[in-house]
């Protein structure tokens, strides 16, 4: 494989925006002891340890499985864990996969922060792709403007769909979880109906749409890879804005308060309606934009035939990022890296890439299991308590 220089330097360039979006929030007062971030104390320190241990155990067990099934285990492991960093092509693959995960990760983080288990991100991502595709086929706009118009339209559509479970929850206390899961099928079927019946290119063999207007397709960072500048910039912007919204505005405050204690939110006179409905609308907007960016980055015509799964992946990303948009890029990068690594390993050594599901599953189980490492936590608490000698003033 040729290592061309231009590809490599472009790779660095492409990395920069995403690296920046992780750094940005650290600047200013937010970085040190200021602002209204999550509580910082022994609990938050413990949570970090817990996550690292979960990741280590996940990787260790995966390694064991690879040793058990592979004829060349060391080689397989090398492809899986180092492979993606070895060539620009692979690394660009990681970044290309990371972008949709950033969008759905932020989308899921937004509603999970308010304890609204809205999983429509999956369907909205698909629907957003369809809306962007239709707009890219039917409208004519100048070069720089066209894709962003399509993305905006998809975002609006996503917001409208996201509002449905939100409104039903707020007004009639209907479970947003059930409704959003059902809505995913509606999104999928409506999208397929629109494409099949109105925009299907009958000259093409498969069920695909007409080609997009050339002006609607996002520009590549480097011609030979599919990563688009517009996509990277938008993903960075979405992370930054979502972070600012959640941690630096009164609306985000009410979202987080609702996530912590809904009674408290109502009692303190915070805006409960916004926390419930607004968080789900914004989540829909981001997921819709994500679908549009993916559509206008990776394709020249609509050719999805099934739900993409990025919405579900968004849940994993949100769990790793602890619902904080500031940590979403890193979590998305991690997941994308694992996926591409597994893909490389499969192609080179024949170990099935489903192995990556093993890592995911183990890490998620360990992260959501409350009592995992509970004894360690208790020891930390005891050390802290006896050191500071906080005298009990009330015993439950």
């Amino acid at each position: 494989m040729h290592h061309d220089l231009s590809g490599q330097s472009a790779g660095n360039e492409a990395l920069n925006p995403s690296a920046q979006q992780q750094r940005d929030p650290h600047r200013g007062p937010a970085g040190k002891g200021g602002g209204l971030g999550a509580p910082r104390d022994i609990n938050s320190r413990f949570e970090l340890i817990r996550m690292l241990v979960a990741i280590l155990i996940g990787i260790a067990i995966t390694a064991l499985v690879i040793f058990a099934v592979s004829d060349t285990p060391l080689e397989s492991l090398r492809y899986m864990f180092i492979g993606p960093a070895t060539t620009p092509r692979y690394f660009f693959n990681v970044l290309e996969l990371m972008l949709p995960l950033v969008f759905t990760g932020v989308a899921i983080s937004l509603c999970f922060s308010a304890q609204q288990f809205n999983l429509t991100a999956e369907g909205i991502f698909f629907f957003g792709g369809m809306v962007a595709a239709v707009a890219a086929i039917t409208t004519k706009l100048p070069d720089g403007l066209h894709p962003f118009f399509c993305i905006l339209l998809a975002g609006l559509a996503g917001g409208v769909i996201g509002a449905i479970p939100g409104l039903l929850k707020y007004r009639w206390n209907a479970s947003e979880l059930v409704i959003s899961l059902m809505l995913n099928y509606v999104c999928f079927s409506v999208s397929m109906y629109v494409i099949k019946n109105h925009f299907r290119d009958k000259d093409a063999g498969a069920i695909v749409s007409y080609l997009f207007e050339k002006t609607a397709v996002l520009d590549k960072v480097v011609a030979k890879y599919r990563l688009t500048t517009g996509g990277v910039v938008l993903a960075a912007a979405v992370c930054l804005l979502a972070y600012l919204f959640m941690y630096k505005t009164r609306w985000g405050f009410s979202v987080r308060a609702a996530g912590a204690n809904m009674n408290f939110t109502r009692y303190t006179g915070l805006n409960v309606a916004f926390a419930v409905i607004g968080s789900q609308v914004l989540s829909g907007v981001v997921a819709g934009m994500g679908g549009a960016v993916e559509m206008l980055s990776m394709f020249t015509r609509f050719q999805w035939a099934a739900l993409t799964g990025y919405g579900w992946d968004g849940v994993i990303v949100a769990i790793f990022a602890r619902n904080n948009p500031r940590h979403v890029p890193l979590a998305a990068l991690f997941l994308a890296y694992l996926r591409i690594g597994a893909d490389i390993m499969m192609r080179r050594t024949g170990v099935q890439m489903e192995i990556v599901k093993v890592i995911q599953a183990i890490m998620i189980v360990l992260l959501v299991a409350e009592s995992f490492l509970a004894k360690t936590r208790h020891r930390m608490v005891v050390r802290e308590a006896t050191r500071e000698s906080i005298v009990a003033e009330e015993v439950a």
Partner: protein
Amino acid sequence: MEEILRVEHLTKVYENGILANDNVSISVNRGEIHAICGENGAGKSTLMKVLFGLEQPEQGDIFVKGEPVRIQSPSAAIKLGIGMVHQHFMLVDRLTVAENVVLGNEPRRGILIDREAACRVTEELGRKYNLEVDPTALVADISVGLKQRVEIIKALLRGAEILILDEPTAVLTSQETRELFEELRHLRDAGHTILFISHKLDEVKALCNRVTIMRGGRTLGTYELEGLSKSDISRMMVGRDVVLKIEKEPASPGAVELSVRGVEYWSELGKKMIDGVSFDVRRGEILCIAGVEGNGQRELVELITGLRSGGAGSAKLRGTELLGRPIRAARKLGMAHIPSDRMVYGVASSQSVKFNILAGKVEDARYTGKLLFRDRAIDRDMEALARAYTVKCTSADQTVGMLSGGNIQKVVVAREMSQEATLLVADQPTRGIDVGAAEFIRRRIVEMRDAGVAILLITADLNEALELSDSIVILHGGKVVAYFADTRALTEEEMGYYMLGVKSQTPEEVEGAVHAS
């Protein structure tokens, strides 16, 4: 005297970081009634939970009859001869007394439970220890005192030599209390050892041989009760002479701030909980709503503060109706509210101290611009408020759930009192917190009154009602049965008569709560 139970250097830390028992040591003799005294939160219940295997200590040794033991579970405790009668009974209402007594080790005939044997065992034990019960009665049908008796029989059947009773008289009438004491003395004379947890000093003096005093998670010592006066015990429990006097000038009430007229409320079961309640709260006065739990004050305060909907009548804050309007609206009008349940309403316990104090002020121009928060002002002022309200935390970034009850309450109070409110509804503002924090909060309430805030106080603590408030409204059966414009001449006994429905004032006297404006 033979020692039956000894605890040495026991330390217990809860998940939330509270050091509930700190190097606790205690020695109990066979055949004595041993009292454990201490304020709420002194660590009595924790020590008992450790002895009964419900909690595991971090450090310390326990010896039963001289043998070192580890008590991993209640069944291990029972094997060692330790039984416990909980504050809240662990009985199955739908089963009979005998069935409850044998539950867990039922006598069997084939695969069936031998009910006759169960009844026989229950009656025999009852006769032996003078604890008579009807073994065939349903637990749901018997009185609280009898339920407690069933709990004691249950423990005895399992071979308990050491009986732990956690505030057993809290739920009993005075007649039932006397009977319980007779039973306990009888048990003691039969060779059983009783650990009696209480903070009612009369009872301790009347019943017990020795007392161990706990304060702030530590044991202060064990004393013979003979020669110890009640005020001696009380001093040791609190650590100083209890000052229940609150320094305050007489109120100088101003204009009516909150005006409640003819409020009515029916429960979901169709019971009339509030029946035509009217009163006014004026600026610069503390009006207390007192009453025995369940006489409508819970519903009344929840209607006024907006936590509950569905009442009739009116409650106006400076002329604007509050009933049926969202809490947001009432707060914008100037209502602050210390809720009775701090964990349900008062705090978001997984968030930081800073977050919780800011919650009521997110729309304040000092803390937010058009779009973004002013982080620097928030950091500075929230830290300052946490300090001013003496919240004991490592920093304002600490999780509220990690604090002790008194400090969590101070977080709530810091938020509500810094709200620039004109009406403060203080619902059980000092319930279940330590004396220091309670005193601090009461002093702040008086300061707010002096600054011209109208204060509506709801409290179950008669002493607090009398000391803190300027005037009192007493509810009984959902009605106002008394209004005292001046609390200085009022006594607890007198209040008790009205609260229990022994006395009630004439409608004209009650009318005094309504000030013509």
